[in-house]
């Protein structure tokens, strides 16, 4: 039905039902607004957008009034202008216009409109301040209610974007104010410190404490650079704000593809580590290296006091010369495979590509790995086996819009992938999507769940098989999908039918009733998506866990459709990219197998190496055949194999980029022992981390703010990372360092490589060029270029051609391997179960405010203020038995070591289980964890360790 209405004399014909405001804006007619924001439900309270409608004695708020057929609208009549002026004057009446000292002067929407309408604060306005400026003690958000105009955007943002409902409206009339929780402080009211309220606040009422007084809003004095967050795999984008060459803060960018204006506390408030004084400014080498001594001759017993082990700051040439020389001689005398390379899930795709090239072309080994080994190695292996591709099949916005049900298992989404967690909350609260949370802990997300399955740790296969048993028993499997798109179903079915509800309940501790409820939900709500993280992957049966999830989704026919799929949430900002770029011992970039002759030939030709043979290169052969260098054809070692192998003299040198194994690998004592004994450890990082203690050479790299390139997030989306400030001190972008090192090694023996080969050399001028090389050698990334990304193309791999739009959903017509493969998997008990001596079960993980080994977030002021020491979660009943109460400290011991930490008594953990994190070196959970690996993926079982817990007397 066509409607016709007139705005300011302009006739508009349309069939769309819309508000006067939307219609006006679409036709470039400006109507001022304050309380309105396109992301939030309109409130209509500020009255700035009032317009005159012919025939109506009252002015109408354009943001909430539908434009109807025959309406005649005047947006700037005298009556309207007068009303807007009056409204502004009213707002300024209790808003002390200290614009000269206000932090948002220049970015304040009330100030803008007061200027447009030439309104000054009235003389009769409220004198003095009604409220305490800076009235809330939390470390992040500055609350100054004197500047509040009660637009209610903060309330709406907290309710509709974050779905946390911290902010509310209290009191009535002139006394009305925004308030948190039951009239308490923000943190008491369960504030997650995401800062969305600050982002949506049009005035300085809610602002950031971290950069208060630094001129964030002085548009003519700052630069804003849009970039991608370097914390987690959601891949939020935001603007880094730079003033006088320094980063002074982070602001939301409404055009961010994944997150819009939303961010989490780390992304928004955890950036100050970038400019922390601990930053490595110059290369450092141990004195013994400068003296030309051999490491074996140094007494390492008291390494800290030994003057030979003193760190000496030096210039790049010296450091790189020593590093290159050492690596080259190790390669030449002990064999390429005596060297291990750890690349970084935090560094750029381009840098990870270079590390893969360094390992394979320069050194000649497949011993390259990174911390994906510790988190999603089981996902990559499991899904590769089931579907042929180890990546998240769907996209976050797809799930948010289309999943009828979310099955979240082993993922504490709202604390680990916070912005995606809020997307799930929104889908559940506002779209009626269903949510099943399967987790031994009562995590935050359970608040929104229709069903919380609290399975015992390590019993996921029994649980999943139990669900699938019931689905099959009721005949509710998707028979068509199974027939057309899968294989090996019958074998699988036979195995599953052993898992009766009673048997499953006995193993998992889950009441039979919950199994039936879960199956009812799963079968009545399609498409359902499965979402997982460490709770599934970090087990000795991690690969089997993942394959069982693949089984479930094939059984229900939820694969290859919007809203469905297998959705592992990758942890690091670029762990997906590090894997994609061949930072793994068994594949080149794009998951092209090292054992595939054709693939090896392709890379050999590109990199200027001879066509490879299938024979293993021994050290002596190497010397003899130095003119025919081959790409190694044996799968290399994983990081969880490399480090222990040091004690067997297999790995003798390590080149580590942006990783901190001392904090992140299991059994810290053992890790330290191994690293102590390695001949050479070159560590390239931005801080002297805990691992740096064992390094011989420290090369200062840069943070994400000091270089440009790309990251790939968990949904395979490649996004630009843009340099905002110059590298700190003498630090260099990591890709430059890798290239300088590579060139030195190559130039020492240039005959090894055919310099005319297209991609043989390393003289890159920028990461753009590296990307072009990646395009040429990696089919799934072939069409992803910096140019396209800068143009605004939103690309998810596979993107095999320059005009290909990218691939939001995988496996739509067929799986990467053709048919999906059902795998029959059995419940196997975990490696280390509690016993009499170690009667409690330790699970490990992260908290919202800190990141992994803590080397970044422990150097972020505000994050340390809110969470300055490790807390161990312990159930109230267990606490009572131990005599622990509130502030008590605990001693926790395992077979491998012990730690002390403060107790957090909470019912998040069930009885018999405690939960610790690995953010603080003195209380790191990894001192307790053991080196129990999944046999295929080699991922450690972080989720289960047997411990004993005692209360430490005060």
């Amino acid at each position, binding site marked *: 039905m066509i409607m016709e209405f007139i705005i300011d004399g302009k006739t508009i014909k349309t069939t769309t039902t819309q508000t006067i405001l939307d219609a006006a804006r679409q036709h470039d007619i400006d109507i001022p607004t304050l309380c309105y924001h396109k992301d939030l439900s*309109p409130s*209509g*309270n*500020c*009255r700035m957008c*009032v317009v005159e409608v012919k025939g109506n004695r*009252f*002015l109408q*708020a354009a943001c*909430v009034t*539908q434009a109807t057929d025959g309406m005649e609208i005047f947006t700037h009549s005298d009556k309207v202008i*007068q*009303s807007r002026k*009056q*409204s502004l004057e*009213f*707002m300024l*009446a*209790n808003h002390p216009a200290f614009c000269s000292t206000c932090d948002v002067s220049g970015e304040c929407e009330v100030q803008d409109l007061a200027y447009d309408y030439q309104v000054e604060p009235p003389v*009769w306005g409220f004198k003095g301040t009604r409220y305490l400026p800076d009235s809330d003690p939390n470390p992040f958000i500055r609350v100054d209610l004197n500047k509040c*105009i*009660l637009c209610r955007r903060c*309330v709406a943002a907290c*309710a509709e974007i974050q779905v946390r*409902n911290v*902010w*509310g*409206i*209290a*009191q*009535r*009339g*002139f*006394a*009305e104010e925004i*308030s*948190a*929780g*039951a*009239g*308490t402080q923000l*943190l008491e*009211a*369960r504030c*997650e410190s995401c800062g969305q309220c600050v982002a949506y606040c049009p005035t300085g009422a809610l602002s950031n404490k971290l950069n208060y007084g630094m001129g964030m809003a002085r548009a003519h004095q700052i630069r804003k650079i849009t970039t991608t967050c370097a914390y987690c795999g959601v891949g939020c984008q935001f603007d880094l704000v730079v003033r006088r060459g320094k980063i002074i803060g982070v602001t939301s960018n409404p055009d961010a593809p994944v997150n819009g204006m939303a961010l989490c506390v780390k992304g928004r408030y955890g950036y100050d580590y970038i400019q922390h004084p601990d930053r490595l400014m110059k290369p450092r080498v141990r004195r013994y290296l400068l003296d030309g001594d051999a490491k074996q001759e140094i007494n390492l017993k008291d390494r800290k006091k030994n003057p030979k082990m003193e760190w000496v700051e030096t210039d790049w040439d010296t450091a790189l010369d020593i590093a290159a020389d050492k690596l080259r001689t190790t390669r030449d005398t002990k064999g390429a495979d005596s060297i291990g390379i750890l690349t970084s899930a935090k560094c750029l795709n381009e840098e990870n590509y270079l590390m893969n090239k360094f390992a394979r072309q320069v050194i000649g080994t497949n011993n390259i790995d990174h911390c994906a080994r510790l988190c999603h190695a089981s996902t990559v292996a499991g899904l590769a086996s089931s579907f042929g591709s180890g990546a998240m099949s769907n996209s976050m916005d797809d799930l948010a819009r289309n999943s009828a049900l979310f099955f979240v298992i082993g993922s504490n989404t709202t*604390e680990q992938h916070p912005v995606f967690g809020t997307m799930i909350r929104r889908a559940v609260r506002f779209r009626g999507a269903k949510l099943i949370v399967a987790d031994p802990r009562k995590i*935050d997300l359970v608040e929104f769940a229709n069903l919380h399955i609290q399975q015992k740790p390590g019993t996921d296969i029994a649980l999943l098989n139990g669900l699938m048993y019931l689905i099959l028993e009721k005949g509710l499997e998707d028979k068509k999908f199974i027939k057309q798109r899968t294989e090996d179903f019958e074998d699988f079915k036979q195995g599953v039918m052993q898992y009766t509800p009673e048997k499953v309940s006995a193993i998992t501790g889950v009441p039979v009733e919950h199994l039936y409820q879960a199956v009812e939900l799963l079968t009545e709500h399609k498409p359902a998506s499965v979402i997982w993280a460490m709770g599934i992957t970090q087990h000795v049966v991690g690969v089997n866990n993942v394959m069982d999830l693949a089984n479930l989704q094939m059984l229900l026919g939820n694969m290859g459709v919007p809203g469905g799929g297998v959705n592992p949430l990758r942890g690091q900002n670029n762990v997906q990219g590090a894997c994609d770029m061949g930072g793994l011992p068994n594949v080149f970039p794009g998951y092209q197998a090292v054992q595939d002759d054709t693939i090896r030939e392709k890379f050999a030709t590109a990199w200027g190496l001879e066509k490879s043979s299938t024979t293993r290169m021994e050290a002596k052969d190497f010397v003899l055949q130095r003119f025919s260098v081959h790409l190694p054809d044996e799968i290399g070692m994983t990081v969880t194999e490399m480090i222990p192998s040091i004690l067997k003299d297999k790995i003798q040198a390590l080149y580590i980029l942006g990783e901190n194994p001392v904090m992140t690998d299991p059994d810290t004592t053992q890790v330290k022992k191994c690293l102590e004994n390695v001949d050479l450890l070159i560590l390239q990082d931005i801080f002297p981390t805990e691992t740096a203690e064992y390094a011989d050479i420290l090369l200062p790299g840069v943070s994400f703010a000091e270089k440009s390139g790309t990251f790939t997030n968990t949904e395979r989306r490649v996004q630009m990372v843009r340099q905002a400030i110059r590298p700190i001190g003498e630090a260099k972008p990591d890709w430059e360092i890798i290239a300088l090192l590579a060139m030195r090694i190559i130039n020492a023996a240039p005959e090894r490589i055919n310099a005319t080969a297209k991609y043989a050399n390393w003289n890159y001028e920028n990461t753009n060029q590296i990307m072009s090389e990646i395009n040429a050698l990696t089919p799934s990334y072939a069409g992803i270029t910096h140019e396209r990304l800068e143009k605004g193309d939103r690309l998810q791999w596979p993107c095999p051609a320059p005009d290909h739009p990218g691939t939001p959903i995988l496996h739509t017509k067929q799986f990467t391997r053709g048919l999906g493969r059902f795998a029959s998997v059995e419940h196997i008990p975990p490696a280390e179960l509690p016993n009499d001596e170690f009667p409690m079960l330790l699970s490990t993980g992260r*908290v*919202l*405010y800190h990141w992994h080994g803590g080397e970044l977030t422990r150097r972020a002021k505000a994050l340390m203020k809110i*969470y300055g020491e490790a*807390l161990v979660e312990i159930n*109230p009943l267990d*606490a009572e038995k131990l005599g622990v109460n*509130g*502030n008590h400290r605990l001693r926790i011991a395992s077979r491998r070591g012990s730690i002390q930490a403060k107790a*957090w*008594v*909470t*019912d998040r953990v069930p009885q018999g289980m405690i939960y610790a994190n690995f953010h603080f070196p003195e209380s790191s959970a990894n001192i307790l964890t053991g080196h129990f690996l999944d046999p295929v993926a080699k991922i450690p079982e972080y989720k289960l360790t047997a411990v004993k817990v005692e209360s430490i007397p005060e």
Partner: protein
Amino acid sequence: MTKNLAAHNSVSAEILELAVKHGNNHESLLEILTDLQRTHGALSEEFITGTAQALDMASSHVYGVSTFYSMLSQVERKNIMRVCDGPVCWMNESAKTREALEKNSTGWSVERTSCLGLCDRAPAVLMNDEQAGPVFPEDGKKVHQGWRGTSADYSSPRSGETRVLLANIANLDPDSIESALKYGAYEGLRKTLSQKPEAVIELIEKSGLQGRGGAGFPVGRKWQFVAGAKRTPKYILCNADESEPLIFKDRVLIDSNPHQLLEGILIAGYACGASEAWIYIRGEYEPQAARLERAIELAQQKSFLGERILGSEFNFNIHIHRGAGAYICGEETALIESLEGKRGEPRIRPPYPPSYGFRGQPTAVNNVETLSAVPPIVRNGEEWWRSLSNYTTPGTKLYMVLGRVKTPGLFEAPFGITLRQVIEGFGGGMLDGSKFQIALSGGAAGTIVNENQLDIPLDYGSAQKGISIGAGSFLICDQSVSPVALLRELLHFFSSESCGKCTPCRVGTWRAFEILKGMAGNDGKTGTVAELRSISDQLLASSFCGLGQSVSIPINSALKNFGEAFVRGEERVRS
């Protein structure tokens, strides 16, 4: 993540029981908070978070509700004397009463409160839930010890009254259903059930019945909208919030003939295709709420409510829901919000309640007097109703004449009477020594008029001629009352009752109050007549709801009819 080191987040048994008692859903919130307030005297943080948990709501939401309503507080006040500051009580120096009570207040807090709807017992006081008045300063001690004064007696009609809604109240026992039946209760319902709903609506439309809350919207048309709505269930809401200053007719109707109201709601329900009704009654009318609950129980026992009413297929239930002190909840969408367990803030309109009302369903909201008029109309027919008045608007109206007249109080009469007739006829004439100066007609949001408006026939159209009928109340002031002070009192009311959501009303009413305080000589705040006018224009043009819009009526009429007094006020402030 909260670092809440408390082990358990268990909710107290008391709150859980209250939740169950009141329906265990979000709509139970206000009543749970009121019960907690009554028992404990204050709503602590613990009660707020406990209630939030029990009802699965955000603490911020519950806190927002607990700070919105005047009868709830965070500060302890176990026993409370609420002294009315409405226009009549003000004229009767209730401020002095308050001072006296403060001296006799052991174990009690004393508070000033907006019009209690006890204008015929001014100065009035609410002693916890008990209505008391008239309470003069010398009665302070008595009232503290339990004395409650006397209610007005309306059993004998004044000369000239036409009693329809008030018929038989001399003989009716309001707590006895047998008594009500004797005088024709539920005969209208019986007649209704034998017809089709459409026929009932047609009858009401033909009768010309207009809403009695003040807006005068044709009732039949409203019911037609609801009846025509496809979605079910549908609801009837009876607006018994009666918080407009000077208005107390609904209280009298409930106190004198509760079954008449229930019957009217039943007929409305049948006509509209509704299955359930709520009477939203202001929290200050506890005795009236209790009376209605008793009447409902009796009606249920006699099968006038519940399932298969009078053997028909018609099922219907009526519930009572108490407010907690907020004038804005008389606005129909704010009433609905309050009923749904939220702050009483008006909604964006459209959509209007007949298409999207309570719980998002089609809803008819009608005033107590409106619904009370329905049974007589159904019993006697539309012709009869029209015949009662020989003015354009048919039927009768309940009027209240208050202030400096000899016989103030409530009476029932047709439309078309004049202010002069109200004063000299029904009101018994001005008191000795009092010369008529000002009348506030319609309610607080009514017109402030002088002798020029004495002879204009009053009905829903008379506002155009300068005097509005509103809800039918007339405050008659003599030479001792300053129009500036009167308007100041009204703006005090509006600024304390503004919900605060929109800028014009939240700040405009507060500023207008300040200007008037200054002009009335109170505290030196400066302000001009021009500014008052400008605020009034803004309130009318851009307020979010009718409350803000209607504040312009008394301001504009006062400035028009008593302009000089305001100019003098402005000059006084300036000098």
